[in-house]
């Protein structure tokens, strides 16, 4: 079978390799095998202080031109009914709205999103995935966000 050298094909190959990396740390990892436009983590552990011990994570993979990995994921989606364990509202977490059709589609399907912007993203190319930023780096960032509960929930 011929190698798909299109942008979507290259992104799909990259995601396939990255998902293998993610699966070494997280359980229940899957991705969009057709358009390479999302990665899903079924069981992402979160620290104490939230209303559940684990959440689902959906990463919207940039698939424009340029797309991932040149462009970092922006935002991430998680359980819409996420709360702190004492029921406080969460800053920078949204369960409605969104400017694009895709965003509205996700909120309609019951996802909420944290609005996080990566400001420095230096991916490596080709097979040297671990030498630069990758989805594991992004999930480390997500882990840091979940540890930042005091700031997000105001104390």
């Amino acid at each position, binding site marked *: 079978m011929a190698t798909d050298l299109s942008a979507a094909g290259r992104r799909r190959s990259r995601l396939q390799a990255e998902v293998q990396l993610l699966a070494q740390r997280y359980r229940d990892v899957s991705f969009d095998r057709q358009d390479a436009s999302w990665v899903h983590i079924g069981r992402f552990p979160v620290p104490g202080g939230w209303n559940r011990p684990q959440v689902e994570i959906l990463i919207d993979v940039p698939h424009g031109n340029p797309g991932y990995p040149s462009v970092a994921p922006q935002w991430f989606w998680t359980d819409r009914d996420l709360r702190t364990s004492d029921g406080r509202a969460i800053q920078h977490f949204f369960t409605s709205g969104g400017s694009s059709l895709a965003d509205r589609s996700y909120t309609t399907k019951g996802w909420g999103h944290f*609005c996080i912007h990566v400001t420095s993203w230096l991916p490596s190319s080709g097979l040297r995935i671990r030498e630069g930023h990758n989805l594991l*780096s*992004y999930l480390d960032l997500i882990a840091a966000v979940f540890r930042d509960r005091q700031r997000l929930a105001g104390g």
Partner: protein
Amino acid sequence: MGRYVINGEVVDVREDRPIGAHLKEAAGINGDDWVMVTMPNGQILRLPDQDPLPSEVTDVTIVPRYQYGH
């Protein structure tokens, strides 16, 4: 020499009293990234490259630079 859990993985650090830059080097992580440490009271702080790792931290995560949006 010390052993730390960084980004969920055990990492050996040569220095007895490492600074932020030592942690990044030992973890093989991009020099531009931020070292985020969790304190016992739950507060999360960014550890500058030149600052020593507080002995009481409960977690170390090294992440791409980011900011919260609205």
